[in-house]
């Protein structure tokens, strides 16, 4: 028998290695993706001393029917199937939700940009496409591209592959985190998937364990999570972050920036109008906002952006979406976010070129020592520390720093550039009276509005204090 099995293995053209998790045991088996669930039960049953009819196979929140073929289940290499013993030996009834894999039941339209599209049939969508195409004279689209593929696509940030990948939806018990869990109903939209405790189910992990513990308090809830579909599963903890604002462009909506219609995934802003940008434009939008420091430090979501059309309540809540930036810009995003956080927490940034370390010090302490580069400076004017009032900029202060810089930071040629930049900044700019951001006035009136998104302080270029009606009367234009 063993020989027969092993010789049979050689006949399998595409071997798929999967794990079978039973209560207490994990088996590793090689199968053909063309096997159905009945065949899996036949293989597994003797290994755990049970009859095939006593087994239930659970995957992604569903008990799979015997006639389901593995390759239709969105099951990757080294995925885990849960096998549990049926509780009562009653003949199985096929109920309408339980027996098909999750990926066969969900469809893209449930999660597409326009919420009402769930009620629309495919023909309505095709009409819309035709309508758009008629208006778009220079669109050169082959009939192949018009075919709308109805397959659920989730996009994730995969920490292993370090990039935007297609994701797979998985289900586990919200309480004990076991994957041996069947849902009572299918998720219908993103809220069901992203928010806690939306869909109830039955935990099959340990007889009655979860139900007993939670009895009289709440039902057992499903917890949805995502895996990357592009690398071999590294186990149950190998998860990916759902980038749920990136969605298939089922309704063929035009990008608000480049005016093209993307046939790939698009970014849908979380605003009432579901404004859409193609992913390239979204990246450019992020980069230009980053360069202008116009990201917003949101108390709940973090350093983020809103819909470029200024729609109300449109902040991006899941900041992993900014992982779409390349590594260099993502580092910059991180640095700016940290700096903004320090500034908003009442801290300051070391003014020494090349340092910029965040410093949180008592607000009444004027003499600040940077722990990074040991520079000692005045909290009020960000110049080298001095006793008494902050004075005008002194040039010898610059010279002093060049020596200290050489000795402490062992700067070499780059030093001259740094000093030159610093001199220029000193000559050309004045600090915002509120956050000290060096600000250049390149024309217009004396009424300044701080360019830092988190500050926006209104100040007077002449007085270097808050802008007042007196400033307006006396020296609005200098």
């Amino acid at each position, binding site marked *: 028998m063993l020989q027969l099995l092993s010789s049979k293995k050689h006949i399998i053209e595409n071997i798929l290695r999967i794990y079978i998790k039973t209560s207490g045991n994990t088996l590793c088996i090689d199968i053909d993706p063309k096997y159905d669930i009945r065949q899996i039960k036949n293989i597994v049953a003797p290994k755990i001393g049970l009859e095939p009819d006593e087994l239930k196979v659970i995957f992604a929140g569903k008990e799979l029917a015997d006639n389901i073929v593995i390759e239709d289940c969105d099951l990757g290499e080294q995925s885990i199937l849960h096998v549990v013993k049926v509780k009562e030996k009653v003949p199985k009834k096929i109920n309408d939700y339980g027996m098909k894999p999750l990926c066969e039941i969900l469809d893209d339209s449930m999660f597409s940009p326009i919420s009402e599209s769930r009620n629309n049939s495919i023909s309505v969508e095709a009409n819309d496409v035709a309508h758009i195409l008629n208006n778009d004279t220079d669109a050169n689209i082959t009939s192949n591209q018009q075919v709308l593929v109805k397959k659920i696509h989730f996009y994730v940030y995969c920490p292993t592959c370090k990039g935007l990948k297609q994701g797979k939806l998985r289900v586990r018990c919200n309480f004990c985190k076991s994957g041996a869990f069947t849902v009572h109903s299918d998720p219908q939209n993103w809220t069901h998937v992203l928010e806690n405790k939306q869909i109830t189910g039955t935990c099959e992990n340990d007889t009655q364990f979860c139900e007993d513990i939670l009895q009289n308090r709440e039902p057992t809830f499903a917890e949805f999570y995502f895996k990357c579909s592009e690398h071999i599963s590294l186990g149950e903890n190998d998860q990916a972050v759902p980038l749920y604002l990136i969605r298939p462009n089922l309704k063929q909506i035009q990008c*608000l920036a*480049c*005016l093209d219609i993307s046939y790939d995934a698009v970014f849908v802003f979380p605003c009432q109008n579901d404004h859409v940008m193609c992913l390239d434009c979204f990246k*450019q939008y992020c980069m*230009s906002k980053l360069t202008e420091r116009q990201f917003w430090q949101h108390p709940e979501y973090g350093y983020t952006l809103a819909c470029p059309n200024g729609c109300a309540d449109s902040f991006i809540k899941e900041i992993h979406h900014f992982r779409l930036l390349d590594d260099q810009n993502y580092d910059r995003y991180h640095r700016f976010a940290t700096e903004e956080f320090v500034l908003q927490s009442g801290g300051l940034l070391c003014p020494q070129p090349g340092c910029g370390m965040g410093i949180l010090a008592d607000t009444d302490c004027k003499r600040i020592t940077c722990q990074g580069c040991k520079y000692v400076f005045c909290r009020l004017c960000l110049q080298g520390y001095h006793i008494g009032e902050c004075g005008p900029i002194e040039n010898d202060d610059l010279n002093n720093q060049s020596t200290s810089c050489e000795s402490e930071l062992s700067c070499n040629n780059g030093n001259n550039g740094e000093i030159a930049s610093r001199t220029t900044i000193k000559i050309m700019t004045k600090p915002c009276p509120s956050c000290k951001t060096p600000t250049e006035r390149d*024309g*217009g*009136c004396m009424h300044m509005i701080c360019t830092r998104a988190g500050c926006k302080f209104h100040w007077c270029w002449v007085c270097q204090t808050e802008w007042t009606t007196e400033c307006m009367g006396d020296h*609005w234009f200098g």
Partner: protein
Amino acid sequence: MAALPRRIIKETQRLMQEPVPGISAVPDDSNARYFHVIVTGPEDSPFEGGLFKLELFLPEDYPMSAPKVRFITKIYHPNIDRLGRICLDILKDKWSPALQIRTVLLSIQALLSAPNPDDPLANDVAELWKVNESEAIRNAKEWTRKYAMDN
């Protein structure tokens, strides 16, 4: 120089095919990002009858950043300074990539109909507009006749 983005091509085509009434915007022969613009002074404004030349430039990261627009024809207006620079929120912090060349030019035309002396760029003009509106309007008409009606 990088290829011209499709968005700019599309906008230019539309400006040619369906021009905005009272506004013409033609790309320069040698630089498709630079537009020669003519805005006619709106009716019932001191600029009526004038043809105002402007220049409009689409920067490298357009539409992520706003077009740069400047009046070339001298104009007496509280929100336009003597260098032709325009004080208009959508050209600065209220810019959105969903706005277009045509919406910008329409806003500029609207600004000619409704000067806003409370948000000025030209100080003396704004002050006169507030203190003595009829004299300011007289000046504006005079400048329109002098600078915007020849040719």
